[in-house]
């Protein structure tokens, strides 16, 4: 199984995810057919409500999700008619989830199996217990720093070092896709960056709306699959350019 291993693996039947009925997992999916079924089946043991946003996949990802719905009825599928980008998919997922009755907590979760469900549980616990609006995962909080590939570590560290905003907010990881947040954030969220620049945009929104933010050390499982699919470091240039011109766009 590619997805994060749980410390206490539960059987597929008799899941106890009723305690998390107010939590929605938002999973942007673009051509993840080999893994998406396992990832959502695994996550649904703990979190019953999952909305998969199929961003115009052409590899049968949607069929895999449909198949997973047979065993996990809380899984929902929203399909973009055309490919729009990960940021747009996340925004769609959030708009779907926040319209569901009883939704209070929201999690952005990657489809490629690099995030662990255990980490999400810990983040939700903190949202429930602490006076924060959003918890962002960081690869640089705990002991697992060294598992981040060397070049990637240098680049991510430099982005944070160069960003006044990241330092002011006390954030140590520039582009972590694992985030958990409450309704305050979900209701006001309006991501415009369709592509990969949405991570920077997200942090910008945290700053602008003065949301109370904290970090949670998480483990990213750099599997061969996720490594091959991971965003190229050249994307950093695109992200930088988007960020510079973004302020000028009419909303």
């Amino acid at each position, binding site marked *: 199984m590619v997805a994060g291993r749980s410390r206490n693996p539960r059987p597929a039947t008799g899941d106890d995810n009723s305690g998390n009925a107010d939590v929605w997992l938002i999973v942007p999916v673009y051509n993840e057919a080999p893994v998406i079924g396992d990832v959502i089946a695994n996550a649904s043991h703990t979190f019953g409500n999952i909305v998969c*946003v199929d961003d115009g996949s052409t590899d049968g990802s949607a069929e895999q999700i449909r198949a997973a719905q047979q065993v996990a009825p809380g899984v929902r*599928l*929203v399909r*973009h008619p055309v490919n*729009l980008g990960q940021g*747009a998919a996340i*925004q*769609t997922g959030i708009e779907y989830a926040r319209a569901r009755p009883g939704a209070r907590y929201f999690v952005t979760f990657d489809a490629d199996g690099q995030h662990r469900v255990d980490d999400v549980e810990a983040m939700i616990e903190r949202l429930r217990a602490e006076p924060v609006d959003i918890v962002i995962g960081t690869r640089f909080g705990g002991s697992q720093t060294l598992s981040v590939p060397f070049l990637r570590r240098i680049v991510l560290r430099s982005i944070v070092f160069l960003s006044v905003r990241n330092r002011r907010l006390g954030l140590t990881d520039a582009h972590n896709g694992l985030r958990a947040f409450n309704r305050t954030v979900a209701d006001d969220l309006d991501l415009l960056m*369709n592509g990969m620049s949405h991570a920077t945009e997200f942090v910008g929104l945290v700053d602008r709306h003065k949301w109370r933010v904290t970090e949670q050390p998480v483990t990213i499982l750099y599997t061969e699959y996720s490594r091959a699919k991971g965003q190229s470091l050249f994307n950093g240039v695109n992200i930088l350019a988007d960020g510079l011109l973004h302020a000028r*766009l009419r909303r």
Partner: protein
Amino acid sequence: MLVIQIVLIAAAAGLVWFFVTNRGNSKASAGFKLLFVAFVMLGVYAMIRPDDLTVVAGWVDVGRGTDLMLYCLIIAFAFTTVASYLRFRELEIRFARLARVVALQNADAEDRE
């Protein structure tokens, strides 16, 4: 060479600043059209009487009229590049919102089944 550098850089910065801060209102879009007409007319004039342009170039310490024309062209090109980038981004955002509405409506219809 110093005069032309100052003039061109100031012109570029001013142009970008004006259009970027006033985007979308009728003043800016009218300004853009007038600027374009002026630019084309100047270009035609320069083609008919290239020596006049060289005289103007001499005023700002540029050697030849063609060089002056080239500098202006670079500024104009950089400006249109930024303007079209912003235009495309806005269209992308509208397109994404439209597609999102379709996706959510389809999902809701499915949920009701």
